[in-house]
Each structure stands twice: as C-alpha cells, then as structure tokens.
C-alpha cells in the first residue's frame, strides 16, 4: 500500500536526527536556495510517508485513524464509537465482510480491544504531530488556512479554489503559517481578516553596482590579507528579499527623578575658620513627568539562514523608503523571497518590545539629565514605559547575498540594496600577512 518512495523519507528521518555536515557548518549558513528546497521536499515526503502508513490503520467507517479499535469475531477492527453506531445491541454485522458477531449482555463493551493495533495507531498519531503540516489537498504547500466546517487544513491556493464559492457558509481561519516546526493553526489565528499584504521595497542598486560596492568594501578592510582582492573568488551574488516585521508602537512613559536644588547647596561655615566641606544643605525634590512618543522598530523575521554575528548587524538596519502603495507580490518573481520564520507575536515579544523600551528609557533619562539645572545632583531616576498601541507590517528588504572563497574558505556578505550598507565575514591577515604588508614588493 505504500505507493510512495520511501527512500527520501527515511533520509529525511535521518536528517532530523543527525543534520548533515553542510547544514550545520557555521560559515556556510547563508542559504543557497537549493538547500532550502531540499528540506522542504523532504518534510513533504515525510508527511506522505506517514500518510501512507496511516492508510493501513484507518477505520473503514469514519476514515480516521482507528480510535480504541474493537475486534469482531471475523478479526476486523473498528473504532469503538463507530461500532456503537452500527450495532443493534444484540449483534454487530461487520461493515467489511457482513459476518455477524453476537454480543454479550455487556454489548459493545464485551468486545476485545485490539491492543497492538491501538499502540500502532497512537504511534502514528504522534508521528503526525512531529512532521510539518502540509496542505490536506495538494500535499505540497504549507498550511495557512483551516476551514472550521470541513475541519481541513489547506494552503492558500487550494483554499481559494475549493472554497471560492463556499466562503459565505464556511469559516476560514487564516494563519500566516510562519512557524515551521510545529504548525498549530489555533495558536495564532485571525478570523475573517486577511493579513496585510507584505511590502516589497525596491532594489536601489543593480547587481553590477553591488559588485563595485563589494569590491570597495573588500579594499577598505583593515588587516586583510594583501592579496584578498585579487585572490578571492566570487561564488555568487544573489538578489534576495529578506523578511522583516515592522512595528510601530505608541508609548506613554512616566519618568522622573529626585534632584537637589543647586542654589541651596551653599557650604556652611563652621565655628572655626575651616570650611566644613562635608556639610551641605540639600533640598531634594522629586519630579515626575509624562512623555508620549512613537517608535518604529524593524525586526528580521528569518534568522535561520544568517550567521549570528551578521544577524546582529542586519537586525539594526533601519528600513526606510517605505512606499505608501501596497505591493503584494515580488516585483521580480525570479528573486528569491525568504520565508517568514518568526511570527508576529514572537517577533514583538522577543525583540521589538525590548528594543523600543530600551530606546524610550534612554530618551527619558536624557530628558531628565537635560532638565536638571547645572550644579545640582540627580538620584533615583525611574522610567516606567507602557506601550499603548502596536501596529505591525510585513516588509521585504531587498538584499544581495554574496558568497566568496578565499584560501579555500567560504565567506558570506550581505549588501543592503536599499542603503548600500555592507555586512559580512572576512579573512584576517595572519602574522605572516601583516609582515608581508610591510615588506616592499
């Protein structure tokens, strides 16, 4: 009954256990798109593999994986709940072979449970939880839709075709399907409310210009091997859309401090001629203030493919030139668009909120200090930021991913195609290299 190719599925299972070397090497993790597709097609095979397995343990009555299967005298097994519907309380006619099984006075409950089959069914149900959810209809694409009435999970394309005319009767739950590992539609859903379409920012520099920028960057590096620019081999320059979440948050902040009035801190004269330096008469006054501000914070939504130290730099890229017109699909479909791997809530909680509060704190502390009269002291500064509203938007930032090889080592560079900023890995000149730098040649 296994009509699918088992080999890739098993390979995929193995991959889950021991990630092959090329997926794990540190320098190599700016994605070649090919690696990405490999993973996707393997997880699809895994799903098909489990689907095919589960076909053998499905109840012929409800078509679901058997749930507490009871065995009839003909050795056919069915869900307890299905047999309950089939029986007349004295006997059960097997839905498959029409053999009649007489029931005892206990009715259905007198039938033996098929324990081995129960265990197999439970294992397969668990296996399904483990594999990424694929559209119930096409078995190809990631699930982003769930129909409440039909209880099926679909991708956008299949949902549009299957439910085009049924939308009025059916509740379609939409998720952005961003979490790849354990897709759970229930956890982050928006009912009857399509996500804002993402914005694609325009490429401001051509690939040719990018090559020039890259070469300039290489030449500007300090302590680089002197032959770097001549000897490096460019493997590729790939235009890519990097996914970002942009949050716009309004804050209201209560901030303040206790400060001394500078004018009253006059040194007191003691009984003797000595000035008693230690004795100041200070008037401490507590001041509080309210401050409202608006912050914009961009957060990269795909951190899997980018090396950690590059990610920190890419994270700080401010996204600008955001057009007012909404562009919902990539202007150039050939350009690789990286997937959203971080959902909105996580992106906000883990990153944007912290950064916005930090910015607000710095700003308010600055205000406290600038309001303080010269010569006075400040203590007990407090900043209490509360976020009053948050709006989010998905934006794709155009970038060039560059890979080059120097001295048999791979290096990755990312060029921001909006601002021409460059971040990347680079080789350093060894002691020999530095030595060569000073040698007249």
């Amino acid at each position: 009954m296994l009509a699918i190719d088992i080999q890739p599925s098993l390979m995929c299972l193995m991959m889950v256990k021991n990630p092959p070397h090329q997926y794990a090497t540190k320098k190599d993790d700016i994605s070649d798109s090919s690696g990405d597709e490999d993973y996707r097609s393997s997880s699809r095979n895994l799903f098909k593999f489990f689907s095919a397995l589960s076909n053998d343990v499905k109840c012929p009555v409800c078509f679901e994986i058997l749930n507490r299967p009871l065995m009839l005298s003909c050795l056919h097994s069915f869900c307890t709940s299905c047999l309950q519907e089939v029986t007349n309380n004295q006997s059960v006619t097997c839905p498959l072979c029409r053999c009649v099984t007489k029931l005892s006075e206990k009715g259905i409950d007198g039938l033996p449970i098929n324990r081995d089959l129960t265990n197999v069914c439970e294992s397969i149900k668990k296996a399904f939880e483990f594999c990424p959810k694929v559209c119930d209809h096409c078995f190809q694409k990631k699930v982003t839709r769930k129909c409440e009435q039909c209880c099926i999970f679909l991708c956008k394309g299949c949902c549009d075709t299957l439910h085009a005319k049924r939308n009025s009767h059916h509740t379609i739950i939409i998720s952005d399907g961003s979490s790849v590992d354990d897709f759970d539609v229930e956890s982050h859903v928006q009912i009857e409310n399509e996500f804002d379409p993402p914005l694609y920012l325009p490429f401001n520099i051509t690939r040719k210009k990018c090559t020039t920028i890259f070469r300039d960057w290489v030449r500007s590096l300090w302590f680089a091997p002197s032959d770097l620019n001549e000897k490096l081999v460019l493997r590729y320059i790939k235009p890519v859309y990097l996914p970002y979440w942009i949050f716009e948050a309004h804050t209201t902040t209560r901030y303040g401090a206790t400060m001394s009035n500078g004018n009253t801190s006059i040194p007191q004269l003691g009984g003797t001629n000595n000035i008693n330096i230690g004795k100041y008469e200070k008037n401490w006054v507590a001041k509080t203030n309210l401050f409202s501000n608006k912050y914009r914070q961009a957060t990269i939504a795909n951190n899997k493919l980018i090396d950690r130290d590059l990610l920190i730099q890419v994270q700080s890229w401010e996204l600008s030139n955001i057009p007012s017109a909404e562009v919902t699909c990539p202007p150039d479909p050939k350009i690789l668009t990286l997937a959203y791997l971080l959902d909105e809530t996580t992106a906000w909680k883990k990153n944007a909120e912290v950064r916005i509060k930090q910015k607000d704190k710095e700003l308010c502390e600055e205000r406290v200090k600038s309001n303080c009269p010269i010569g006075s002291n400040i203590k007990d500064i407090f900043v209490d930021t509360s976020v009053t509203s948050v709006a989010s938007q998905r934006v794709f930032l155009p970038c060039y991913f560059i890979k080059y090889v120097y001295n048999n080592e791979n290096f990755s560079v990312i060029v921001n195609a909006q601002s021409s900023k460059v971040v990347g890995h680079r080789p350093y000149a060894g002691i020999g290299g530095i030595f060569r730098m000073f040698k007249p040649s």
Partner: protein
Amino acid sequence: MNSLPKRIIKETERLVKEPAPGISATPNEENLRYFNVVITGPVDSPFQGNVSHHKSGGVFNLELFLTDDYPMSAPKVRFLTKIYHPNIDKLGRICLDILKDKWSPALQIRTVLLSIQALLSAPNPDDPLANDVAEHWKSNEKDAIQTAKEWTRLYAA
C-alpha cells in the same frame, strides 16, 4: 448549515482528485451532500452508445444524496437520464441490494457508483423493478437489448 463529517470531505476530495474510470461525481456548491453524477455506459453493454459512428458513448446523469445518517445509511441515488433497464424504473429508481438492506458503512460513494456501473453491464431481470422491461428481457433478450440501445441513443447521447 450543519458541519460536514470529515469522512464526506475525504470521499469528495478523492472522488474529484482520482475519479474512477467512466464515473464523475461533483458536489453541489450549495449543498455538499448532493452530488451530480455522470456514468458512461460500460463497454460491450447496450448502454455503451454508438461507438461505430464515433459518437461519445452513452452518458447517464444521476443524482446522489447523502442523508444525515450517512454512512450509517445508504446514499439515495437516482437516474436522471431515461434508461431501459430491468432494475431501473421510469422514475430512475435503482434496485440494488447495497442501496437497501445490504448497505454497509464501509461502502462509499465510489463503491456505490461502481456497483451501479456494474449493474448496467449485468442487468438482472430475475429481481426486477421495472416489470415490463424485465418481461421483455426474459421473453426476447435480443429485442430488449435493441430497445436499450435505442433508448441510449435517444436519451443518453
């Protein structure tokens, strides 16, 4: 609208995606329990249509309805196209054991339609529904088959 059991959705999907040869079943957009069915007459049966004239074979329209009890009770199936057959009456009702007392919840829309297709290949005048047709079949099978072919040409082309 009541929610549709998952089983019906699965059956519908498979029917649409992997249709059985000579059978198509399309669910009604408004009522997903109601199907428009088209069965082509089996080869070497009087319902095949006129192949020698390169016409498409006999095409029979049926309606199929899944009651609220389904799959605990059989679907309701009826021919919409007129057909000369001892087990199918003027109103298109079908005499088939699995649609009545021999129904089993392990049967599906697909198996029901395959059975109906098989019934076209093997008319059973000993268990008739249309008595006059069955008599005709028993007394002069050749002539009856000729009439069936004629009806196929007239109504199911």
